[in-house]
């Protein structure tokens, strides 16, 4: 199931909440939450829900083993076995085709290319369980005794298919004991409505523009058209992904969980380093904590470690070489920034940093968008004028035909809602009628966002699911 669907919004979520809040008992609530999460997953992956269960069972058992033999060689063996199984599953399901195709291309062999559909969310939940076992091994958290609670951690539908990548340590305490309040419910609903609007009313509309300008004949659209298409893609991927994270965080609030923020207005960053502190934060910290630092961080072989991390970050986004290039591209930028660029940028006016970041990000989305390397070369060429300036008149028509929407989308890239929320919180603190105004205004705004998104979903607007590759 996906969040941006009428079935989820108006049947799954209300009924789950009803069952959940029907009885004030934490074990009951955990069981309900686990069961509805499995239904949620099986709705879209009726077969591969078994893989989710298998994976959870394996990791739960390994966690116990690691803890039992803590400090002895068996613990290390269990960790290695667990990593082998997890990465093996990820490799088989996600990278099998890429590996065999690459081997077939490079070596004189003709291996059969496996045709396995990628189970939704496998990259997210595999990373969650890996982080769990590693944390247990490091002695940072106790292993989960209860298989139910562990399954709840892995399968919790809020963040199962599109992140954020939640760590066990973040929510272990809340699995056992969490507080539900109307304050939390209201905060969560507000956040959820915002995320839903971002996904349905902005990302889905952007997706149509992307399709029009980037999926056709690039020579015809020329540089102007390619940049417009990439602008639309930049908006699509940001609003889709951060919208999903907003919805996950909002639902967490409603059900008493507190997930870390995953996006912090990345397009206002002033360097690639800054951007990655604001973009998909839970992925960045995962690679920092479980790959970069164990490899030695910046102390030994810093540059090597950096490129390993960025190559893997790229690869995580999809089983295709362009994603690796995309990751290494960021590795290169971040290395350059670390060596000299950051210092230069700091001396220049802030605007230069913003322009630099926006430019390198647009180029990065071109790499991200083109899963075919031939296509990538064509797109990059077109961006930089290989097909001429292109269809300026057509771009002008498209810009005019979408100008209100575009203005709204660009404004929402700024920390605008943070400002409004802060303002609204100030009003609430002031108390009295001001508090009524703040909450009442917020409620009407959130309801308007929800109804607008509902209308677009009922209207059957284009609604792609972009995480199938992750």
């Amino acid at each position, binding site marked *: 199931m996906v969040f941006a669907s009428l079935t989820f919004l*108006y049947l799954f979520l209300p009924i789950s909440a009803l069952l959940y809040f029907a009885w004030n008992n934490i074990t009951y609530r955990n069981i309900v939450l686990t069961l509805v999460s499995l239904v949620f997953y099986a709705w879209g992956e009726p077969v591969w829900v078994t893989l989710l269960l298998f994976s959870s069972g394996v990791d739960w058992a390994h966690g116990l083993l690691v803890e039992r033999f803590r400090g002895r060689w068996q613990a290390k063996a269990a960790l290695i076995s667990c990593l082998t199984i997890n990465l093996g599953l990820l490799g088989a399901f996600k990278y099998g085709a890429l590996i065999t195709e690459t081997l077939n291309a490079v070596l004189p062999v003709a291996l059969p290319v496996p045709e396995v559909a990628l189970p939704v969310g496998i990259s997210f939940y595999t990373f969650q369980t890996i982080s769990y076992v590693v944390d247990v091994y490091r002695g940072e958290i106790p292993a989960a005794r209860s298989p139910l609670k562990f399954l709840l951690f892995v399968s919790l539908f809020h963040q199962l298919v599109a992140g954020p990548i939640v760590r066990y340590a973040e929510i272990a305490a809340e699995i056992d004991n969490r507080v539900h309040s109307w304050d939390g419910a209201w905060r969560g609903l507000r956040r959820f409505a915002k995320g839903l609007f971002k996904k349905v009313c902005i990302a889905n509309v952007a997706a149509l523009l992307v399709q029009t300008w980037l999926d056709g004949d690039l020579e015809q659209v020329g540089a102007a058209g390619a940049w417009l298409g990439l602008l639309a893609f930049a908006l699509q991927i940001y609003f889709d992904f951060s919208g999903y994270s907003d919805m996950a965080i909002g639902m967490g609030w409603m059900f008493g969980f507190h997930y870390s923020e995953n996006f912090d207005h990345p397009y206002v960053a002033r360097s690639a380093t800054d951007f990655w502190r604001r973009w998909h934060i839970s992925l960045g910290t995962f690679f920092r904590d479980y790959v970069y630092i164990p490899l030695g961080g910046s102390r030994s072989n810093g540059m090597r470690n950096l490129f390993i991390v960025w190559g893997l970050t790229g690869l995580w986004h999809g089983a295709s070489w362009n994603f690796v290039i995309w990751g290494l591209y960021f590795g290169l930028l971040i290395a350059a920034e670390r060596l000299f660029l950051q210092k230069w940028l700091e001396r220049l006016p802030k605007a230069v940093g913003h322009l630099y970041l926006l430019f390198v990000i647009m180029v990065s989305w071109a790499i991200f968008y083109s899963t075919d390397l031939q296509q990538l070369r064509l797109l990059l060429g077109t961006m930089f004028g290989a097909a001429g300036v292109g269809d300026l008149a*057509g771009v002008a028509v498209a810009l005019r035909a979408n100008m209100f929407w575009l203005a709204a989308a660009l404004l929402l890239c700024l920390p605008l809602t943070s400002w409004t929320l802060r303002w609204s919180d100030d009003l609430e603190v002031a108390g009295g009628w001001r508090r009524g105004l703040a909450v009442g205004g917020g409620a009407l705004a959130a309801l308007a966002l*929800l109804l607008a998104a509902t209308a677009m979903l*009922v209207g059957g*607007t284009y609604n792609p699911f972009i995480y199938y590759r992750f």
Partner: protein
Amino acid sequence: MSLQPTANPWHRAASLLFVLWSAIVVVLFAQTPAGPQRAETENRDLAGLPECTVETVLSGACMGGFDAWVSDHFPFRSLFLGWSSTIEGNRGISLASDITVIKVTEADLARLERADEWAEGTGSDLAEGSGLEPGEELAAAGSGDEALLGSGEDEAAGTEGGEPRASLRAPTSAELTELEKAMEGVELPAEKAAPASGKGAVSRVAGLLVQGDRVMQVFGGSRRAAAAFASIVNGYAAALPGVRVWSVLAPTAISFHAPKGYDSSGERVNIAQINAALSSGIRRVDVVSEMLQHASEYLYFRTDHHWTGRGAYYAYAAFCRSAGLAAVPLDSMPRKVNRGFLGSLWALTRVPAVGSHPDEVEVFSPVTKVSARAYGSPISGAGRPTAWVLPNARSYGAYLGGDLPAMVATTSVKNGRKALVIKNSFGNAFATFLANNFEEVVVIDYRYFNASVADVVVERGITDVIISAGAFAANTSYHRNRIRKILFYNGPPPRMDAAQTEGSGSQAAEGSGQAPPAAAAPAVAPVAPSPEVPSPVEPAVPRAEAPAAVAPAPAAAPAPEGSAGEAP
């Protein structure tokens, strides 16, 4: 509820607002009857609850079906659909004065061959409307078409088994010349010329003219072709005594939206010529004049080669005036507007400025009660129920649900009149309105119907036969041959003479060789089409059906997922 008391009652109130709204929706869902239902206002069956077995659950079909059910039964659905149109329509400001030059390749041209299927949506709304898989329809229709394209062979084959009877033969060269005399002096009165629109340069490439966010087909009919079409209509009138025969030809967008300085009178002159050559017993229908009076309205899609429901309405109004019927006023019909249609001409050109500004589909439902059934050819048995109008479809398939070999609509009208519409896709939108004025409306797609129209007329007691197609089709020998052939499907082969060869060989003559007198060189210099690209007279269509019949539509349609074919 067991939430903890809060220091802030406002938060509880705000949250309860959402709880209340969800609860209303859930309760309304719970009260939805599970069985199949019909939406009378939308004139279509709503999705029923899916059958869930182990197989359908494992394949996901059960869940997909449930999602469709939720979408179809969503409370306050029509209200939300209206809001969604409002939101979609106000994303920005649309102006259409910019001109783009496009390159159209041979491969692109091949795609227009499937234009009708594209425009009507090969996806869900077609299947929804007809109950047939798109490929199934074409396969059913294909064999006859293919044979027909192979010159006279099939007509010879037609003799076997059938007792000899009169056949509508092709006109001789001398007869055509005679008919052409009737066209002498047919010109457009100056005041009837369509208003020119737009500014700037225009590109005319391979028969398509792109201006800003609009694509048009360039007309290239000829006087001789007009005569040949008129002779067929005359033949129908002669063969069906006591039946009123009408010709209702649809002009295309070029007659109304040609850029300033571009001579766009060719098509209107051609239609006027056809009308002038109709025999004296046939009453004329002046579609073009009626439509010109409403030229500022949304009569043509910008992204598709068809007219809109509104455009077809004015043809219906003109027809009613000639036929002595009272046309139902436009504003008294249930009306629905669906945004987001990208039609055949967008699919062909992929001009982004066109794709960024999709069309609206305005659907009018008849004020009478209509029950339509779909048939193969000949019309026999009980048929199966099909949609007459799909008010929610975001494609030209909203009208009649697509192209079927035959359909019969029974209405609540009681006036003893029964219409038979012989049509291609242009007639679809037109035919939907006839349900307001006829007891029965039989719709036959001449491209797919392989049986005798004369038999249908006699068996069903038809009072009015209306030939309704696009003006391009009237000027294309394939289409004329089909219309001629199905009058007496199993009749003896027509006399082979000089004119007959026109049927198989004249495509080049009509299509690319002679500069048709009507489609004079545009005043604005066209972008020179590459020499190997055949020129304008819808050359696609005759070639179209054959490959389409071999390759089923889904594979052929250049479909960007989800943008055009889906009904909401």
